[in-house]
């Protein structure tokens, strides 16, 4: 019915013919998109769905009746009544010619090339039956370039520019560009000698040949030997769909090992932690099983974090029901309370925004998160919103983020601690007739958010058709989180804005939905990947359990989807389910048997689905914004650098963990680059090298916590701005 209505609408539909077949295009669709939708094949080498058409390969040429020259189907939109031919002798000859040109001086090293067997150039060369070369060009010296984790081999590059447009339009790093020079054109780092980017590796993923490859993977395995294990990335709440590619370790050692991680680059964009941080499996089998069972049975509290599957969370809550132990997970509890408060005014139990909503929006407001490192998937969605829809993106945070400088239009710097006031002002701005009783002068003064800036948001909001509000971890762990959540609930209720509350950890949403949580741990306590009296962990501890790439189970990602992950590498020891069986006196064979209890479907038959939200009658209760706190002195923001999220990513990727400050911060604290400093935050002692980051502004230093072992999780459950006294180590 809906389709029919669209059809009758007429104005947006274009009727034309491809190869004699009647097809319909929606307004804005290109001929190639319609052809693909209809299952008509048009070869391409440079086309990427997620970016604007590049038009460098010219393989997608089609003939249109009445036109003399063939046109590029990837860029051309059809008009009513045209007749398109996708294949003819002339076109075939033309395409074959292009393929022949691609092969001029392409090194014949398929035998060793990493891409061999999964190479677009190989496939298309065979498809067009090229058996000899009639063109020639003088061979040039094209040395391989070393770009950190990435290697660029110019001689293999076919200059399709997929990498450039992905980096620019999907990722937003804008780190590489095409260096024009005719036959000696190449891809070069933009504005510097070597590559300086977030190392997401998406360029490796989209490269149709072996020109851009991962240096760690190079020459270790062939594409056809690797078995793809479908999984969801376990590092952040985006839960990106990835494949762990596994093979035996060596001739001698038959155990499976992950060689690389790949993604379906047309569907999603994966960050560097997901792509390179795969080697976090637990190979230890420490601890005595019966001791661990005893400890779990006698524990008064079970401390855990949200880097856990739904099934494990379910097991823990079953154990807690049986033994009466309290489940302690402060970060998930914060999130649970936040959602509860949010639901009061939203009239729905969950937020309604998704990553797709962000990417489709033409206005986005991001508040309370350093999104480029907290959740790169949201950042990529922001980039796409900006590139596709020229979205007006406002970024509200006390710390300036240079990674977003090309994406955001408006950076609003608010005072640390005043989030409640900022949210109140923001909500008042974006809701017309909000009827909120706010002392705007006071709030504006204390938060340092100018009224003109808010007016601009309001002005854009009137015009924008698709609007999304992205809410981050700073607000969830805020002392005034409850009132903040209530304010935000009002936004969702209007239905004009979508709200996306980014869960702070991988499965915070799942844990918040499944478990009854409490705050304080009592002795004797058992920690599941957390510090406690007895530690059950995949990272050392007293008893070893498998890591998340050694388990099957489900996560709930930030899109509120239940996604699955599978076993990529084996684990020799026992898991949580076996411990729980002893405690519960039950005989559940596999952890995934709990999937049926949770979602009513057996794990193997489970397909990705959205969590349902409960509709309630919305209220409009918000407390008055009381005096906003002021934070004086040295401020430190707990924030991990790119490629790092947790002790698990640290295990897989080694990187430095310096205290980063702006030049201004260095002057104020009388520090210079490279100084050893000591400070204490939330009872944890840090000893770090101080580094000046010229991209930073203001007087807030960034302190990573990913290298703090299991303490990292307890640190991240707090408000992320903390006062600290920094002392230089002599």
């Amino acid at each position, binding site marked *: 019915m809906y389709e029919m209505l669209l059809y009758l609408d007429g104005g947006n539909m274009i009727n034309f013919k491809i190869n004699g077949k009647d097809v319909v295009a929606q307004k804005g669709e290109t001929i190639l998109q319609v052809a693909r939708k209809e299952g008509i094949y048009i070869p391409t080498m440079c086309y990427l769905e997620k970016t604007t058409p590049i038009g460098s390969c010219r393989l997608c040429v089609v003939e249109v009746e009445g036109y003399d020259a063939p046109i590029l189907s990837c860029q051309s939109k059809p008009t009513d009544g045209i007749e398109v031919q996708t294949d003819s002798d002339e076109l075939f000859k033309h395409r074959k010619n292009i393929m022949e040109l691609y092969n001029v001086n392409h090194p014949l090293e*398929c035998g*060793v090339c990493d891409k061999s067997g999964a190479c677009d150039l190989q496939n298309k060369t065979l498809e067009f039956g090229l058996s000899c*070369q009639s063109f*020639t060009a003088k*061979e040039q010296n094209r040395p391989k370039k070393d770009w950190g984790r990435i290697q660029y081999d110019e001689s293999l590059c076919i200059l399709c520019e997929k990498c450039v447009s992905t980096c620019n339009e999907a990722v937003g790093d804008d780190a590489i560009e095409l260096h024009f020079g005719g036959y000696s054109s190449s891809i070069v780092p933009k504005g510097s000698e070597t590559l300086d980017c977030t190392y997401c590796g998406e360029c490796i993923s989209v490269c149709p040949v072996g020109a851009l490859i991962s240096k760690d993977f190079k*020459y270790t395995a*062939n594409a056809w*030997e690797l078995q793809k294990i479908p999984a969801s990335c376990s590092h952040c709440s985006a839960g990106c769909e990835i494949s762990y590619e596994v093979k035996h370790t060596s*001739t*001698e050692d038959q155990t499976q090992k992950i060689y690389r991680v790949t993604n379906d680059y047309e569907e999603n964009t994966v960050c560097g932690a997901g792509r390179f941080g795969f080697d976090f499996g637990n190979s230890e089998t420490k601890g005595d099983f019966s001791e661990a069972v005893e400890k779990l049975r006698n524990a008064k509290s079970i401390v855990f974090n949200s880097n856990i599957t739904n099934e494990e969370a379910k097991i823990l809550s079953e154990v807690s029901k049986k033994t009466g132990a309290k489940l302690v997970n402060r970060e998930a509890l914060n999130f649970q309370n936040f959602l509860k408060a949010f639901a009061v005014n939203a009239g729905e139990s969950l937020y309604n925004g998704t990553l797709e909503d962000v990417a489709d929006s033409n206005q986005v407001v991001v508040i309370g998160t350093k999104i480029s490192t907290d959740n790169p998937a949201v950042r990529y969605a922001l980039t796409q919103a900006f590139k596709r829809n020229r979205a007006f993106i406002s970024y509200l945070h006390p710390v300036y983020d240079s990674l977003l400088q090309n994406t955001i239009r408006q950076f609003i710097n608010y005072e640390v601690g005043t989030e409640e006031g900022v949210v109140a002002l923001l909500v008042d701005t974006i809701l017309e007739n909000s009827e909120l009783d706010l002392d705007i002068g006071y709030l504006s003064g204390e938060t340092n958010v100018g009224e003109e800036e808010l007016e601009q948001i309001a002005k854009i909001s009137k015009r924008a058709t698709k609007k999304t509000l992205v809410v981050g971890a700073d607000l969830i762990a805020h002392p005034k989180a409850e009132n903040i959540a209530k304010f935000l609930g009002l936004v969702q209720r209007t239905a004009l804005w979508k709200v996306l509350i980014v869960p702070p950890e991988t499965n915070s949403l799942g844990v918040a939905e499944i478990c009854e949580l409490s705050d304080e741990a009592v002795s004797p306590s058992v920690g599941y990947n957390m510090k406690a009296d007895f530690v059950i962990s995949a990272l050392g501890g007293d008893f070893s359990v498998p890591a998340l790439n050694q388990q099957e189970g489900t996560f709930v990602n930030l899109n509120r989807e239940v996604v699955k992950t599978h076993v990529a590498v084996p684990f020799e020891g026992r898991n949580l389910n076996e411990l729980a069986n002893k405690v519960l006196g039950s005989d559940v064979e596999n952890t995934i048997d709990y999937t049926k209890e949770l979602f009513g479907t057996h794990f193997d038959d489970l397909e990705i689905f959205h969590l349902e939200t409960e509709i309630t009658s919305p209220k409009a209760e918000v407390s008055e914004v009381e005096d906003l706190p002021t934070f004086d002195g040295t401020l430190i923001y707990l924030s991990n650098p790119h490629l790092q999220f947790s002790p698990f990513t640290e295990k897989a990727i080694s990187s430095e963990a310096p205290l980063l400050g702006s030049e201004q911060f260095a002057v104020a604290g009388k520090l210079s680059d490279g100084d050893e400093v000591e400070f204490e935050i939330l009872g944890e002692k840090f000893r770090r090298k101080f580094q000046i980051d010229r991209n930073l502004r203001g007087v807030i230093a960034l302190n990573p916590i990913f290298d703090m072992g299991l303490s990292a999780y307890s640190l991240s459950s707090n408000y992320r701005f903390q006062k600290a006294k920094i002392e230089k180590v002599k």
Partner: protein
Amino acid sequence: MKELEIRGSQNYVPVEIEDYPTSGWDKFTQVVKRTLKGELFVGLWVVFREMVKFDIHTLQYPEEVLPVSPRYRAVHKLLLLLESGSERCIGCGLCEKICIADCIRMDTKVDENSRKEVTEYSINLGRCIFCGYCAEVCPELAIVHGPRYENVSEQRAHFALKDDMLTPIDMLKAQKEYPGFGALSPNADELVKKTPLAY
């Protein structure tokens, strides 16, 4: 005695086969005849005669082995480049892929010259069916079947490792180009399509 049909140009000699005895008496006489004829001594005499004459026709294995045809497919060898002595194997993995018995395994890595290095290469001779596909698919003529056909082992899984198969560097001069399975055809040069090299 039945007449045997003799076909073709082969010089077949029909063996004399007497008719089977039918009655009890015939059977009895056959047994007595066979027992008392002394044919055993005929055979013993022949052996003794030839022993004294030292006219020996059997192969003195293991001192002597039969020469095998170059197309015989026995235990594999890995060859070196004749000019430089470096390994021919580039680690492309095609032999591993094509092997229908799934008995080839290799480990590769990047070496210090940024080239692909084959660190280990093994063939499970217990599984190998000596089909010759690996030698045929090898683009570098690196893996070939050698003439060694002895496969005695104490275990079912009997491996040939890289060191066992690779031509020792001091034996490079003695390394022969392999004419058998997977070798270049005699007219290989004529089959090459030329690529224009204008410079």
